[in-house]
């Protein structure tokens, strides 16, 4: 299933990219425009995606996809939580500010990776303070402070 879906997605993406590239000024061979090279790349991408699709549909289904599904439920949950936490951090950072986002991020991820709440909360507080001190105070990175 997955092994066949991926090349199809690539094929669509290459098609969209080609359509967009064709709208750019192509120029001529002696005076290539902004669209000249993207069109070449798009054609290459399309050929590669076609080849990948062909090879995926020729080989037996499920042969390669099986390896990816072997994770047990706990491991999968750990990865999903980490990814959700990363995305949530990016979403709330502009509003909540760095110190609070970093604290929550570290505490939640640590907790789900198997630490106890006290460890998770203390590590969260320490790492948030230390990294804010290092980056915002010492290196002058304008990390958002948030509403308070």
């Amino acid at each position: 299933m997955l092994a066949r879906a991926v090349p199809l997605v690539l094929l669509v993406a290459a098609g969209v990219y080609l359509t967009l590239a064709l709208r750019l000024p192509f120029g001529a061979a002696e005076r290539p425009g902004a669209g000249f090279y993207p069109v070449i790349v798009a054609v290459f991408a399309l050929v590669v995606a076609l080849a990948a699709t062909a090879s995926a549909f020729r080989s037996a289904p499920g042969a390669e996809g099986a390896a990816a599904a072997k994770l047990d439920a706990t491991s999968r949950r750990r990865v999903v939580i980490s990814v959700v936490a990363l995305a949530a951090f990016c979403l709330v950072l502009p509003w909540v500010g760095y110190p609070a986002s970093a604290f929550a991020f570290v505490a939640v991820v640590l907790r789900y990776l198997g630490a106890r709440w006290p460890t998770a909360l203390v590590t969260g507080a320490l790492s948030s303070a230390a990294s804010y001190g290092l980056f915002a105070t010492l290196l002058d990175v304008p990390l958002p402070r948030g509403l308070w």
Partner: protein
Amino acid sequence: MGPLEGLAYGFSIALMPGNVFACFIGVLVGTIVGVLPGIGPVGAMALLLPSTFAMDPATALIMLAGIYYGAMYGGSTTSILVNVPGEAGSVVTLLDGYQMTKKGRAGAALTIAAVGSFFAGTVGVLGIMLAAGWLADVAIRFGPPEYFAITLGGIVLLSRLSGGSILNAFVMVALGLALGTVGMDSISALRRFTFGSVQLAQGIELVPVIMGVYGVAEVLLLAEEGIAKTQIAKVKLRELLPTPEEWRRSTMPIARGSVVGFLTGLVPGPAAVLSTFISYTVEKKMSKTPEKFGTGMIEGVAGPEASNNGATAGAMVPLLSLGIPFSPATAILLGALVVHGLQPGPLMISQRPEVFWGFVASMYLGNLMLLILNLPLVGLFVTVLRLPQHILATLVLLLCLVGAFSLSNSFLDLWVLVIFGVFGYALRKLRVDPSPMVVALVLGPMMEKTLRQALFLTRGSVVDLVARPLSATILILAAAALFAPPLVRLVRGRGFAKPTRLIS
């Protein structure tokens, strides 16, 4: 400036206190990330890149490169003691290295690995001094057609060598090239594929992509395991000395590994990893008792451990003399120089000698520091392995987030980091190597610029473009690399040729 004069001048730069300190931090961080499985040198270099913005270009290069070659030392420690590769360049080492540990010869294996790395590192710097200068002299006559041929040929070779199927590698290349076209066109200033986003007009930054693919993705793999306990073999200091017999058996493998490594480093591809496989195969072939490999042969540690250090040195040559990075690690070094307005290339050696020679001299210094760090102090680094992995994983994620933001204080970079982190994790699950994508992302814009300039020069004639002697040679070599192996297989399959074993 001749090599000797240059080196003397270089030491006067490298021995300045700030640079000695930068070198020390670099090789220390390199050793630590080398020892730690899951976190590799490329991710660490990307993480520390923002901290180098305030440094001199030479200092930045000295520190970041220290991480790269330092990791090759550290990686062997974990391979030998834990039977888990500390980083990809040490996978081969565990075949015989861990077997030696089981036989109680862990100390000898560690010593030979460190001495071999030191020897190869030193030979490698010698190689850089000679090869980079020579190549720069040749490259000064290169025009856009040659540079176009080198970038195109490099991408093709890299795809061929990156391991796994060439189709997957080409998918990665196509993706990298396409991502490289996002943003402002460097010639006509037209915005391409930005969908009206002002931030995207700057293009997709390399560093958050690398941090995602090599930092976040690796941590997500670590996260699967949660709290994991590592079993570490104990080493006593007095066991560190190899026997005279072990020294004797290691000498030639180290010498051969150094040369194999340096030469592999010159070729586009995952040099550090590839060189260890080549060196292992060579040693096995040269051995009178090849069947004993895998049971704790010191040759199987000495050769590969020398070769991965030789390869990191070799990989610097195309970067320093042509300005073209063929690996994610050297792409970061390029990024570090470009931030300071320095364009590595044939003119850099003569115009900014303090950067080139200071860097070369620092590699001698760094290798010496690494020898000390990795022999008497090996126990200290082994304790790094006892750090709770889940805490380490979480803190690295946080560092990736702050690091990506601090590059240019952009929220877009944060999203690029997360998206490519997830993407890189998926790629590892599908066993696809992401490095062709990363290299294509760097080389793509170079390739476009040189192609357009070259076509302008030849008035649109593709024949003139590829028929220049050097372009033609490079493109023919690349085509040969691309098509020769399938042809060989085809011919052999029909029984036209005797099966000869190729190095795999």
